[in-house]
């Protein structure tokens, strides 16, 4: 039994990571293009270099948080406190800048603080054996109070533009730094999920935790590391956030989590774990930010953004499941 289940698992892991562009990715691409065409027809300001640059700019933080979320979801977990992780890391960066520290140091402090918070999350969930959704919901509350305590109801604002110049600048006058960092992060994650034991273990745990354990995967260590990693990525996102907006406000990171979960799941990463698609996450992020930008341009107040994302999430997942259900009516919800 153990040999057959081991090879089953190996097959599941191999199938689990979609490294090529498949049906889901093409659907998302078509949705992006369709949305772009509609917004171009509805608003003259949509298809301009300036506006598309804004859309690309708005994708930066979500791409990083979405990558972290994808890794965690791949192993069947979730971290809904990641938005607050971004917030706390941003406050740390803002305080360092205000205190006159070097912007490079502040930029590095972001991912370090994020990683430290990821360590807390990992300890609570993995060492404390608490279900991820409940544990991170609890942490969400704790972090929200911590943010209030640190900000005292006031914004950190008017930060020097140096951090932004550093992070949104160009390497050798050509290559944008933010693009390079994101491409590097995704390339590393791609290699990890394709070739490295850690990435394969993530997929194995997501596909069948018990089988993975029996096959010798160090389940707890892998899960622990994944949460630290997603915290690190969220902290990195905070560096870019502060660099661009030059302020830190009370509501920072509020809707980032839903957007990140939506981007991952839209992209074809299974919320049950065991299936991941990085290109899907990227396209999911682009679609979400494109829709938010377009709706704002045609005059829909930004208050509606979370409504739109929520509906999009349900719509895409429903379409997928209706397809599945046509095959078998009796599929059960896995716990």
């Amino acid at each position, binding site marked *: 039994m153990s040999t057959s289940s081991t090879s089953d698992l190996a097959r599941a892991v191999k199938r689990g990571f979609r490294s090529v562009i498949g049906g889901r990715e093409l659907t998302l691409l078509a949705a992006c293009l369709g949305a772009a065409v509609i917004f171009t027809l509805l608003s003259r300001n949509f298809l301009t270099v300036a506006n598309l640059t804004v859309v690309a700019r708005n994708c930066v933080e979500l791409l990083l948080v979405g990558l972290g979320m994808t890794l965690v979801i791949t192993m069947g977990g979730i971290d809904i406190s990641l938005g607050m992780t971004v917030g706390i890391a941003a406050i740390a960066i803002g305080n360092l800048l205000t205190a006159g520290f070097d912007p490079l140091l502040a930029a590095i402090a972001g991912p370090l603080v994020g990683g430290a918070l990821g360590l807390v999350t990992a300890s609570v969930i993995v060492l404390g*054996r608490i279900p991820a959704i409940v544990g991170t919901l609890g942490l969400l*509350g704790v972090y929200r*109070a911590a943010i209030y305590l640190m900000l005292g109801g006031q914004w950190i604002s008017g930060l020097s533009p140096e951090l932004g110049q550093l992070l949104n600048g160009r390497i050798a006058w050509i290559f944008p730094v933010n693009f390079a960092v994101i491409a590097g992060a995704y390339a590393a994650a791609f290699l990890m999920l394709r070739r490295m034991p850690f990435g394969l273990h993530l997929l194995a745990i997501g596909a069948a935790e018990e089988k993975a354990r029996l096959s010798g995967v160090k389940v707890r260590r892998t899960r622990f590391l994944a949460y630290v990693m997603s915290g690190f990525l969220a902290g990195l996102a905070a560096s870019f956030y502060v660099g661009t907006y030059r302020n830190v406000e009370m509501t920072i990171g509020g809707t980032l989590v839903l957007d990140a979960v939506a981007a991952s799941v839209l992209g074809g990463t299974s919320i049950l774990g065991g299936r991941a698609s990085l290109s899907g996450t990227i396209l999911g992020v682009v679609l979400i930010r494109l829709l938010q930008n377009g709706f704002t341009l045609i005059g829909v107040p930004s208050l509606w953004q979370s*409504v739109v994302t*929520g509906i999009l999430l349900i719509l895409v997942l*429903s379409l997928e499941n209706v397809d599945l259900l046509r095959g078998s009516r009796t599929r059960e919800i896995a716990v």
Partner: protein
Amino acid sequence: MSAIAFARRGGSKLALLAGLWLALVVGLVIAAPAILQPFMATTVLQFSTILALVSLGQTMVVLGGGAGIDLSLGGNVSLTSVLAMALVRAGGPAALLPLFCIGIGALLGGVNGFLVTRIRLLPLIATLATLFIYGGLAVALTGGLSISGVPPWLTPLGRGSVSGVPIHFLVIALPTFALGALILTQTAWGRWIYAMGHNERSARLVGVDVDGVRLTLYAVSGLLAGLAALVSLAWFGSARPNIGQNLELDSLAAILLGGVSISGGAGGVGGVLAAVLLIETLKTGLQFVNINSIWQVGIVGALLIVVLLADHLPNRRTS
């Protein structure tokens, strides 16, 4: 699953909660002796009704298993109060306001049930999405502003009290909890809920209409959120688009503190009510000693984690 083991565990849980509550009260009295006044008890109960109703709904959904959870309850309370008031403002008969609340709440809960049982979305994702939809709609439709104009005949329900006990606690919270306990322990339907939460496959095999029961559970949970919305309208005299904020966190803390297993099939409503009173005493006490209300979110979150850390051994089936 033996009923006696349940009762025994429930009993020790209640004793633990009572102990915690006493320790809390003693601590508060030592910190601020002025807190020891009869009106403080009224205040605690005044704040308890909304959380109690929502927690009862959360209990039902979680008990039914299948990774059941309703993260949208807070958004439901906000949206229901906004929509019900909008209906009245648009010329609907004000006398029907309670019915509007109950109906809209049940409908929004039913949407969750539909997504979970018919479309087969994972409850976590479905209700996370509807939390953002409901909560977002409540804010977007009103622009973040309250809708006033609750008929004056409703306010005694929200603000009145009979010998120190708020009327809504007496006529809404207590009866619904009694009814909930009755249904869970005395009816076939209640047995089915425990059965499917405990082992869904066996429940199906013995002929329980698992999907039907589950759909109803989400609708009932929404209905209770609608009742909570009604209480908030009667209390504040206006529909506040952010009234339900953090209720998902608070209600989860309450039910887990109250001994409901997050994987379903175990727990009862008595512990949940006790946990609600404990949480509200804590919050009221903190407010009395002048600790900012944002701290409450943090403390409830920490409480949730600590309880689970202390309690995870009997609930090993999750992870």
